[in-house]
């Protein structure tokens, strides 16, 4: 992989890596290769950093729309797998921990209950999704 020299190109590349993370692997790789190639060309033709940065900024809303279109389908597909439930499970106890550390015990009660019940429910959903995917083969 070629090295990017200018700060604007490197920032544009970091942004590209960030918003493409949510999309499927093939689509992500194609988009990254394409952007990397554009950035390399802009450096090779000595395009001013300001122009590169401005072009990247102008394309942000398009990048986000592209990522949402690719990411939404991937997210919906992932709901049939255990991964999102396992990722969500620890958030319930952690939110309860943060709330109970900052407010009175009486106020924190419902949050602590949610921490316990929500975490358990997410693990149960993960187990169900795992069994389902295993059953489907």
């Amino acid at each position, binding site marked *: 992989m070629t090295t990017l020299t200018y700060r604007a190109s490197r920032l544009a590349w970091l942004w590209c890596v960030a918003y493409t993370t949510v999309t499927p692997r093939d689509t992500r790789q194609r988009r990254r290769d394409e952007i990397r190639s554009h950035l390399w060309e802009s450096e090779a033709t000595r395009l001013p950093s300001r122009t590169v940065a401005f072009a990247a900024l102008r394309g942000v809303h398009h990048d986000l729309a592209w990522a949402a279109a690719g990411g939404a389908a991937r997210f919906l597909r992932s709901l049939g797998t255990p991964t999102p439930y396992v990722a969500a499970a*620890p958030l319930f106890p952690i939110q309860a*921990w943060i709330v109970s550390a900052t407010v009175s*015990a*009486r106020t924190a009660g419902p949050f602590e209950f949610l921490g316990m019940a929500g*975490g358990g429910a997410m693990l149960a959903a993960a187990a169900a999704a795992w069994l389902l995917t295993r059953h489907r083969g």
Partner: protein
Amino acid sequence: MQRLFDRPKVTYVALVVMIVGFFALSSVGNTGDKDTNVTWIGNIGWALFLVSILLTIVYTVTLAVRAVMRRRRDGATV
């Protein structure tokens, strides 16, 4: 030990189960106003919950460091 880093998904699932399980355990004997004779079980659960959070953070940082080091090593050999 090496297997822990070879199968991060399984390790994360185990850590998440520990976090949720120990948090649930921490509610045992926790009435909110006074201690009961089983409060010590809840206290152990709470301590283990905090330990499992710490383990998750340490594991994530170690994974990230290993990934960066491997990338640098691969980059140096190409």
